[in-house]
């Protein structure tokens, strides 16, 4: 018993170290897939183009204010925008003007909320 060979202990210890190292590497790879998933979802769900488009449409609406008002269709066109936004974009849209130039836009699609007051001439 006194002369028992103990060299194998190093091999076992190193094996353990390698195993722990591999475990951490696997953890990093695993996390990288998750990170990509959430990032992609965040980017895809952000309605950047929807908001830009809606914004330019509402400014366009106020640019044509006089012309549409002459025909008495202001509320109809506004309803078009609100109703179609709800139907096709799942977005609650509300906009109004205080003074003729001060336009307030509200947009909410359940994930992203956008509010803006803009002065448009």
């Amino acid at each position, binding site marked *: 018993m006194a002369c028992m060979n103990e060299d194998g202990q190093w091999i076992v210890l190193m094996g353990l170290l390698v195993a722990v190292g591999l475990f951490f590497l696997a953890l990093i790879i695993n996390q990288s897939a998750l990170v990509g998933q959430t990032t992609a979802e965040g980017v895809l769900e952000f309605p950047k183009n929807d908001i830009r*488009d809606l914004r330019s449409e509402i400014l*366009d609406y106020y640019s044509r204010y006089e012309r549409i008002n002459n025909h008495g269709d202001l509320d109809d*066109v506004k309803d078009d925008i609100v109703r179609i936004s709800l139907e096709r974009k799942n977005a609650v849209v509300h906009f109004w003007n205080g003074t003729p130039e001060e336009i307030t836009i509200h947009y909410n699609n359940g994930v992203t909320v956008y509010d803006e007051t803009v002065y448009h001439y």
Partner: protein
Amino acid sequence: MVNDSGQLYTMEGIAAGLVMLLTAYLILSTTSIYTPGDTHIPDMQLEQLGSDVLAMMDTPDTHGATSALETYVNTNNSTDFKTAFLGYCNAKAIGTDTLHMSANVTYRGDDDQIKEHLLVEPDETWTGRESAVRVTRWVQLDKQTSQMRPYGSRPRAVLVEVLLWRA
């Protein structure tokens, strides 16, 4: 006398170290995981391209003029709309790209129902399995007096929706 036989071992060690580093570099640089974070990038590029094309078509040539997009929608001109849209989309420095599209217009009818009007039919490359992206553009239509008015005569806001795919 100094024993210098260890020099060979040292050089061998350095060489072995370099080989190991090179191997590790090769392995790490060739392995990549294709995550959903990467797959959305082509979709985003396609969406941005389509949005920009629609924005271009919705811009009048001169102040106060009617934009091309508004004219196409108003006159229900699907052929010219498709030609113009795909012309912008497929433009490349060398050759052309292979994008295809279909389009419909969502509007609120006079009976207060949300309706869709098929503006451009999908061509034969459409199987329903394409990873298409949808781009949209609001268009304001002025009061119509002519006979070609698929959406009614009052001024209205309609939503042009374009499906865009590569085939």
